[in-house]
């Protein structure tokens, strides 16, 4: 076996040293009736040649965005990944290390996490950020629990314009923790302020919104913040398409108490839904209520700067049942990709990616809207996703698929009332030619 260096001779020597005759004796503490008498019923082992052949065959049964055009977003975005990212991610000193429990031997990774925390703070306008969460959805769920720990209140208000899968995850966590979820309807593509005002109460731990929301629209953050804070509830903002922060005002400047989000757009491949990375940031005063790993700067005995996991007394291995969360392993390597992405792009680059996504989405929107059969669903300003209504959503996607286009999301899947509504997405990856091609095909659909 190529991954096991011990030879028969090595094993013999070790057994002699241990004073036993066979490896079997090492398993003598396991009751005889539990020991497997036969091989596991799984496929027999492959050589590397066979393995690569089989795995390539399997991979080619999937469509991929290198061979298809894509106008689908909805929480997983097709952005450009500069070559230096996979190249640097291949440094195996990074990817074959464990969580940095021995800081002196892990300065490389610790410094990148410290840089990541700094970047997330800058983007979101918050004071402190953690080292990452599993994904945007679970980060939002953890933010809800954090709000419960801070306020002691047991209800959360969640807008229906939040990504449906995120809401599902929040519900699952809430159910376990015995918290109550109250959903708020939307009006013209954004959270209904009237309903929100009616539903907040002295039981509301937090108000949760997404911006830009699942429909691509920009929420009236300032007003929602006022309603939440007037009620002494926390205000939590989820950012699912974080390139938007290249243009949009950071939620921290608009009064958010906790900002969470999905960092996949920053240099991480779309990879059939994971691994991605959640991010989470808050105000200084809630620092000790944050879940997850935190890296801090400190010094060694000679005054040299170094980095270390800190404030660990919040975490499960010390606080056990009273920990802020049970999270330990997070998404460090994905956070490293995001870090390299953000510093490569820099202030100009990220702004440019956001502008290109914005312009292309609006160009596509204008062109599609011109077609008789397609109508804009909402009038709210949007970033790089928008909704149009058509006669036969499934039919549209069937036609697009034939032309090797992965088309928009059929919203009925998540919103029964939005039958024949399509959620389109555009990024810097969609050329004008591609968009014009899409529009031409749509025009021909009767």
């Amino acid at each position, binding site marked *: 076996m190529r991954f096991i260096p011990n030879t028969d001779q090595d094993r013999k020597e070790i057994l002699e040293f241990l004073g036993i005759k066979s490896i079997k004796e090492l398993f003598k503490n396991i009751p005889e009736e539990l020991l497997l008498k036969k091989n596991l019923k799984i496929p027999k082992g492959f050589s590397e040649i066979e393995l690569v052949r089989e795995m390539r065959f399997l991979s080619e049964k999937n469509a991929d965005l290198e061979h298809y055009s894509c106008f689908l977003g909805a929480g997983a975005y097709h952005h450009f990944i500069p070559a230096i990212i996979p190249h640097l991610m291949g440094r195996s000193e990074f990817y*074959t290390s464990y969580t940095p429990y021995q800081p002196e031997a892990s300065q490389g990774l610790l410094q990148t996490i410290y840089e990541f925390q700094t970047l997330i703070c800058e983007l979101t306008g918050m004071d402190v950020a953690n080292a990452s969460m599993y994904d945007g959805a679970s980060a939002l769920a953890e933010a809800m629990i954090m709000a419960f720990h801070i306020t002691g209140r047991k209800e959360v208000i969640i807008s229906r314009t939040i990504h449906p899968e995120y809401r599902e995850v929040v519900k699952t966590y809430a159910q376990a923790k015995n918290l109550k979820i109250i959903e708020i309807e939307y009006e013209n593509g954004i959270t209904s302020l009237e309903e929100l005002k009616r539903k907040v109460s002295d039981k509301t731990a937090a108000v949760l919104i997404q911006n830009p929301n699942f429909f691509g629209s920009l929420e009236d953050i300032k007003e929602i913040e006022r309603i939440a804070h007037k009620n002494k509830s926390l205000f939590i903002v989820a950012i699912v398409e974080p390139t938007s922060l290249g243009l949009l005002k950071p939620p921290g400047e608009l009064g958010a108490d906790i900002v969470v989000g999905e960092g996949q757009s920053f240099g991480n491949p779309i*990879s059939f839904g994971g691994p991605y990375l959640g991010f989470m940031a808050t105000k200084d005063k809630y620092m000790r209520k944050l879940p997850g790993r935190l890296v801090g700067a400190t010094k060694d005995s000679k005054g040299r700067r170094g980095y270390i996991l800190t404030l660990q007394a919040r975490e499960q291995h010390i606080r056990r049942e009273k920990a802020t969360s049970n999270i330990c392993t997070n998404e460090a390597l994905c956070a490293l990709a995001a870090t390299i992405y953000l510093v490569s792009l820099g202030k100009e680059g990220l702004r440019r990616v956001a502008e290109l996504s914005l312009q292309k989405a609006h160009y596509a929107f204008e062109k599609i809207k011109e077609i008789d059969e397609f109508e804009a669903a909402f009038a709210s300003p949007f970033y790089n996703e928008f909704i149009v209504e058509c006669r036969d959503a499934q039919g549209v996607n069937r036609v697009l698929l034939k032309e090797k286009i992965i088309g928009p*999301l059929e919203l009925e899947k998540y919103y029964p009332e939005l039958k024949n509504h399509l959620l389109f997405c555009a990024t810097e990856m969609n050329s004008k030619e591609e968009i014009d091609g899409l529009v031409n095909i749509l025009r021909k659909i009767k």
Partner: protein
Amino acid sequence: MKLIFEKSKPGRMGISLPDCDVPEKKIEELIPKNSLRSKLNLPEVSEVEVVRHYTKLSTQNYGVDTGFYPLGSCTMKYNPKVNEEIAKFPGFKSSHPLQDEGLSQGALELMYHLEKILSEITGMDGFTLQPAAGAQGELTGLMMVKACFEQKREKRTKIIVSDSSHGTNPASASLCGYESITIKSNERGTVDLEGLKRALNEDVACIILTNPNTLGLFEEEILEITAIAHKKGALVYCDGANMNAFLGIARPGDMGFDIIHLNLHKTFSTPHGGGGPGSGPVGVKKSLVPFLPKPTIKREKDKYSLDYDKPLSIGKIKAFYGNFGVMVKAYAYLRALGPEGLRGVAENAVLNANYLMKKLKSYYYLPFDRTCMHEFVLSGKKQLEKGVHTNDIAKRLLDYGFHAPTVYFPLIVSEAIMVEPTETEPKEILDEFASAMIEIAQEAKENPEIVKTAPHPTTEGGRTPVGRLDAVAAARKPNLRWKKLDKREI
């Protein structure tokens, strides 16, 4: 080393982006002005600077590819390179999670078979691949426990954990609103059956056990334990962090466990990435299958699909379907090994651990002196007599070019040193590590200062870029981000 922010210079950029090829509108026409940001303080650096910065940082990091990494409970085995390449195939790396199911047959087929293989390995009836890490798997498992009793309309409020358990166990229990009861281990380092019987009653929903436990010992009375739990109507959960010891040898399902989570980034060779991404699939027995997170993967003839029609499901615990990229690597590993290969993993892991344990036990106190499984726990008690703490020993190992074992865990062993060599280390490396440990034991007696002041940075002939870092200062005055105006040299 400087931070990337300290290398920034106005006007530099590390990427080139195309001009806008569609007719541009004024931004203010598209987005209300009061929604636009006024400043964005990201660093400005060129491509070559970015490459050098992170390459340099990588050299200040110790990975399995650098050397021996005996971090107990973490199974730091070699990460096969071919799996990294396979995960980059476009069909895996660049497929959209919401694309038509007909376009995702390869991904669904892979996940379906991975579930089947994991079921066979563990002796379970169904699996979910959705959890992103072991701790999330554990949470998912307990959510299913809760849902199961709610469906039966039984009110159970407690979870029993062992005093040698991972901290995630009680933390996950509390995320599900359960109260944890900790039971003490007996003098053999395993579950005290009498203590368990005393704690067990109709309020207990579940017992969480790690097997082999965190001392690296097999729970010999596991069949009695699961039987008495079931008699009281409680479920038994296996923290599968230590599954490496069992592959092809024995199955938690046969032991009577109802639920298990696995760590693909431990047992199944996917790289840990410096703290993720991991993957924490959860397997369950038949009675719990209806509660698995949705969607599940369905196979009809040769067509695979996602099944959301699961009325009893706990719901979703992550967007989409889990850390797919990690699953690809684990699946490739399993296909490469096959049944004999897997058995060889467990055998050699256990062999290596027993070898190292015997080599070290006359130099370090071994609290539970009997055959171990894939790992063992020493105590730095003898060295403490000279004022040398386990933490000092860990730091001194860095000077010798090794990563340190897990220290101060499990909590029931004072000055604990938890060593897990894994099967991917040759005997020579184990010998070198043992020699280093023995030399350090000697130093602790004769020259304790050199151990107490470790690690010694490169400037002093050591191997680390910095000396021992001040954890107390870091926690007293947290500095968690770089600030431009911060003139403090920290």
